[in-house]
């Protein structure tokens, strides 16, 4: 499954993030592949907001489509 298909409040484990640059940025924000995150908002047609602990990240729809996740916890 991909991140864009998550629903608000669902938890999922991030399996893969497409580009190396995005992976590096995600690591800085505290989110790595294998990590369990909460999907805290889905803007219709727009970005998906995920959170881990108190860190929130908005991810554009196009990128969310390429992030493989495994739900739900």
């Amino acid at each position, binding site marked *: 499954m991909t991140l864009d298909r998550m629903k608000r409040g669902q938890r999922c484990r991030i399996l893969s993030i497409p580009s190396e640059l995005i992976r590096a940025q995600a690591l800085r924000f505290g989110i790595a592949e294998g990590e369990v995150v909460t999907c805290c908002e889905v803007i219709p047609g*727009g970005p998906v*907001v995920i959170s881990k602990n108190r860190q929130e990240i*908005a991810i554009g729809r196009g*990128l969310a489509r390429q992030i493989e996740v495994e739900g739900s916890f």
Partner: protein
Amino acid sequence: MTHCHCPGLKIEVPAGARRIVLAGNPNTGKSVFFNHFTGMYVDVSNYPGTTLDISYGRYGSDVVIDTPGVYGISSFNDEERIARDIILSADLVLNVVSAAHLERDLFLTQQIIDTGVPVIVALNMMDDAKRMGIEVDVDRLSHLLGVPVIPTVAVKKEGFDRLKAELLTARPGHPTPGLEEELDQLLNRVGSRGEALLVLEGDPVIAARHGLEPGTRREEIYRRRRERVNEICQQVVRETSRDVGVATILGRWMIKPLTGVPILFLALWAMYKAIGVFIAGTVVGITEETIMQGIYEPAVRQFVEQFIPQSSIPGTILIGEFGLLTMTVTYLLGLLMPLVVGFYFFLSLFEDSGYLPRIATLVDRLLTSIGLNGRGVIPIILGFGCVTMATITTRLLSSDRERKIAIFLLGLTIPCSAQLGVIAGMLATLGPQYVALYALVIFSVLVMAGTLLSTLLPGKSADLFIDLPPLRLPRLDNVLKKTGTKSYHFLKEAAPLFALGALIISTFQVTGILEFLQNLLAPLTVGWLNLPREAATAFIMGIVRRDFGAAGLTDLALSPLQTIVALITITLFVPCIASILVIFKERTKKEALFIWGSSWVAAFLVGGLVAQLARLFNPAGDKVQVLPVVLAFAALTLAIVGMCLFLRRTKPTTNIPG
């Protein structure tokens, strides 16, 4: 005196002085520390090739250097490159960390520690953390990092005395496990541990400096560092409560369309009331008319006329209609300065409260369709204030492709506040259906131009990937300070450009080129736009400033149809001289010329199209059948968007993050 090692950055460091570098993530309160340490005497150095200014000042016999807020140091963007170079040249790093966001902030801390430089951590926002139910074991954190950690509340100056007393106890900390051995191998060849680290992390710039191939292990090192940081956090952070505060709820409302759109409109309305009505009306009325035109201009005219008559050539250039000493100074100080201060005030307010990234999230979807991502909304909002200033802020966009699109759209479709004032006044006399026609035509041009550019330019826009910091109440003194600094820099940058613009137009006037151009334009204005011959004057004026142009139209006797055609044309017309000069400075000559040229084409094409369509639907009258014209434009927009969607399918896509 010696210079900072940072390549190109000129910071004077007296012999024997330590370079104390302030580093931290965005919005950790770093600037309060900087101001506290350096006091009033602050210098600013521009980093070559960028427009980022680095502040530095004296602290005792040492020098304190500020760095841009970053999440890590590498070569991802200008901010990082600068922070990287300054940190690599530091004798001591004071790392400001938010206690409320240790997981995110400690990544940078650990990276700085890995460079081997002596570090002291200011664990800031202890009060925020407490309110959020977060407890941090400071001693344990210090023990695990291997560097001193001082708890602070910067805005209340809590912990500052201790920080100052212990500043020099900064020491190299514990690096990410396993890193040391790998660095030792490189150290011989590179000579500095920090640079060796960045080479290993694949930083292309640092690797090139040493003639080495950049390493390919960034991800692995980042991952290990992240694991290390998570481990530390697990040991030192204790959550006592986890209640959802008002800020969290409001923050969510801001990004959901149903609540976010009304909140955004409310914010824009407040901004419009403050800047568009209060500043542009009341304040500018006083500064421009009463002070500058009422007192300053007559005084300077009188003074100059003692030496040269106003009708002479140097007289015209100095104190004539577009005079260097009259119009330039009045526009800059009387008109532009108050507007700029107002805009920077709101921008700082939005920035400090954490609202900007939420607006970006809210409108991301809309903007991706015109080749931008959510962050593109910031220059567009600013454009309604001043296109020149907005053009400069496109620097915050993540790719060159996005900057191209944003600058083009700003130059073509966004009317600035001064112009919007004149336009609104003229439209108001025609009635709401004309206002709708105007807005819809301009909006459809924005969509068409954006979609076309997005399709034709190679590549694909970056996807949104941003940190949503917690919402918080901005501090007035911080906001005012930011407003002051930014306004000053704007003035410094705009003044010479303005003077140049005035000089060019005065020269045109003196040499008769102005009149020649007027005649040259006439066939276009009369034949194609169906406007009276004199309307050409307005467009010539519009080259200098678009609000000039719009104002030039108010004196003409125009039918409703002619008014709407003229207003649409002048809105899409070339950016004002200040804007285009900034575009020349920001972009290549070729691109700036393209923007300027295509604005001419687009303005007359669209204006003429409206005129011809209106005549087609209502051959005899002076009025416009609004509905058919709007429908025709909607159909045209749909056709272009449809065509672009078709073209995009056949286009290879690449992914640029940001």
